[in-house]
């Protein structure tokens, strides 16, 4: 297998790890610490597999507002959520491998007919970021990533409410609200899913909310109605927090 950069190597390694029985992984190939290191690169030096540099800045700046860091718990950046999104878009999800994508597409179909546009998620991000940056260039003379936190929140709110007409910014098919929907969904997925997928670094979100991750064995606990579960999470690769 060709190893193009650190990211591909990481994806390759993690893929290999899960294909093996856990005992072999932890005992022979990787310790939990090594697995954790592979699963959690340092975000500032991470080389995106999918996003171009300006897009990566957008995603970092958006995730930072969708799940900001504060005293309540970790935010999207400290938990590597942008890494998750990048890895997903570089893979089968980004290509919509599992979805029915044959035409004709009725992009104006009512919302209750579901996803009907011709773009896979990777394309949705590419076009959505471009249109949003075109909007902020016109309204604020800056890219989205260069805006202060309050203004980014305002722009994200406008995207969510479909108050930015993407058609005026060179994107006739994708709606601002549809782009925002993917961005928000994937951000929350990355925050709350297993660290194996690149986000939820250190299982920070699980510690905050009290979800024990992949423990998945509670025969001794089922009788303890109403008692708060006391143990911290474990991940699919055997990390503990």
């Amino acid at each position, binding site marked *: 297998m060709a190893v193009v950069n650190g990211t591909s190597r990481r994806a390759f390694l993690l893929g290999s790890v899960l294909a093996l029985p856990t005992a072999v992984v932890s005992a022979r190939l990787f310790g939990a610490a090594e697995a954790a290191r592979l699963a959690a690169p340092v975000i500032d030096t991470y080389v995106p597999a999918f996003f171009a540099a300006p897009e990566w800045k957008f995603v970092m700046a958006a995730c930072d507002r969708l799940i900001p860091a504060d005293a309540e718990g970790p935010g999207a950046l400290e938990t590597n959520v942008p890494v998750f999104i990048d890895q997903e878009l570089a893979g089968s999800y980004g290509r919509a491998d*599992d979805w029915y994508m044959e035409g004709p597409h009725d992009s104006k179909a009512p919302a209750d007919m579901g996803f009907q546009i011709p773009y896979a998620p990777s394309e949705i991000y590419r076009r959505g970021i471009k249109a949003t940056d075109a909007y902020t260039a016109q309204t604020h003379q800056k890219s989205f990533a260069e805006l202060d936190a309050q203004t980014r929140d305002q722009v994200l709110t406008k995207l969510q409410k479909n108050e930015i007409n993407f058609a005026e910014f060179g994107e006739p098919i994708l709606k601002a609200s549809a782009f925002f929907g993917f961005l928000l969904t994937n951000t929350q997925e990355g925050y709350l899913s297993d660290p194996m997928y690149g986000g939820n670094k250190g299982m920070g979100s699980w510690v905050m909310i009290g979800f024990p991750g992949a423990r998945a064995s509670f025969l001794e606990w089922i009788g303890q109605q109403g008692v708060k579960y006391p143990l911290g999470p474990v991940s699919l690769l055997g990390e503990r927090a």
Partner: protein
Amino acid sequence: MAIVNDAVDVVVVGLGWTGSIMSIELAKAGLKVRALESGPERTNAEEIYPKPADQLGYSVRQKVFAKARQSALTVRHNQSQTALPTRRWGAFKPGNGVGGAGVHWTAVLIRPTPTDLKLKTWADQTYKPGQLQDDMTIQDFPVTWDEMEPHFDFFEKVCGASGQAGNIKGVIQEGGDPFEGPRSNPFPLPPLKDTLNNTIFAKAAKKLGYHPFPNPSAAASGAWTNPYGVQIAPCNYCGFCSDYYCLNYSKASPQTTILDAAKRLSNFDYRVNAHVTRVDLHDDKKTAKGVTYIDEKGQEVFQPANIVILASFQFNNVRLMMLSGIGKPYDPNTGEGQIGRNYAFLSNGNATLFFKDKNFNPFVTAGPTGQMINDFSPGTFDATPYDFIGGAKLHSSQAGGAPIGAALPHGTPSWGAGWKKGMKDWYGHSMKVSITTTCMSYRGNYLDLDPTYKDPYGQPLLRMTFDWAQNELKLQQFLRQRVLEIVKEIGPDSYTESFLKPDAHWNTTSYISTHNVGGAVMGETPNDSAINKYMQSWDVHNVFVPGGNAFPQNFQANPTLMLGALTYFSVKQITDQYIKNPGPLVQI
């Protein structure tokens, strides 16, 4: 020129529940049986701990489901619209691969009631002429409770069903469902242990005069050896059940209950990634000579067989009949034709109750964990003042508790610091009170072939025309009131609700359930059905079509137990009668 396989006695299309039951029973009867599964192999050995403990991979990205790319259909609300493809799964999500939907189901294994089986007769006795919608096309199942009961009982034993009987041979049992039909035996295993939501719901339901009982479960509450000699392990309440492959060998699936025994029979084999494109008929169209499939190398293969069992998912059974010219396609304008007629779905709704001071530990659960009441099913309450027919299971279930998509109280921001604080404060502090409803069949809800969209093999997609009828919307409004009374009795800090509004149309995007039924229904004569009581095609007698397609309308109980029982009923008739004397099993 197609490759031609060695001939077999029986070819089984699809290796989910009904295909597995047919395969083992027909092979045990000495026939040479080959199953063709369109999806991949799925084995217990591959799906070991911790692999399935992965919400993103299994539940969100739907790893063990059919892919819309291969299995999409098109949907619309009425004949005047252009149907559009289900580009990704929304309201339903079918399975594929070995085990079918039987690997990722929630595993509620509940019987319909005797009234459900004879709904039309009951409706005619109960409602005034003209009181119900005139486009309603409900009919009786052509089987009786007494015909079904031994097969319910056997399939419960196959699955290691866990629950509390409510009626054993007519004697009402404390703690069970007093409205269930008489059963010959108690459940093989006691009910699963209750979670906090169960206890809270059951207490409130009792106080209101209802009759709560544990959800009948096919996740085994204890160790079990089934009639095929297959062992099932006690459920460990892992919390990854509905949408997941069982990591503990505890949830009944074709793999954990049937296939290991079937694989020991030398006259049974199966092929995976074998996509059947049609049933091939003899020139007189009265019998089939086998099926054609595309193998994993993309080659076309003809599989000769004396008996063809269509055991794929409801959608695809109906579609294969249409693509093969078995029976006459339904025309909603004239009411003629049977293939595609009486498609029905179901609706659901719920209230989510939030409690700051209660820990529900939602990750400590089995898929079927819950308590339900059957006090609002057809025949157990009087719906005549409300001008609707139908009912629901009212239940508090906790099918899984992983955090993506967790419920948050009204007013919680959808993102930002407020969302994060909402997750921190409220994850694990809510429970649901839900309805899973009946759905009647109507003249305008049906299936046919789409004129535009094609699958990867160039064949037309199935087209679904479906919308809510006034009857179901009235039912929702009635049930909403009952749920809110229970919520009031429970007294949470706050609650949110989700029910159909009186003017609602079917929303194809939000998940309801994969209990799609009808389209090739069973009945008394070829004038009211595609298949007879043994699920044998009226038109092509060596084709049997076991599946949800057989239901003339949908009852409030989950469908799997009925599907399994009907399949055992059918296979007994095939082995006892059909093999000796091939021909129509019901004379008209």
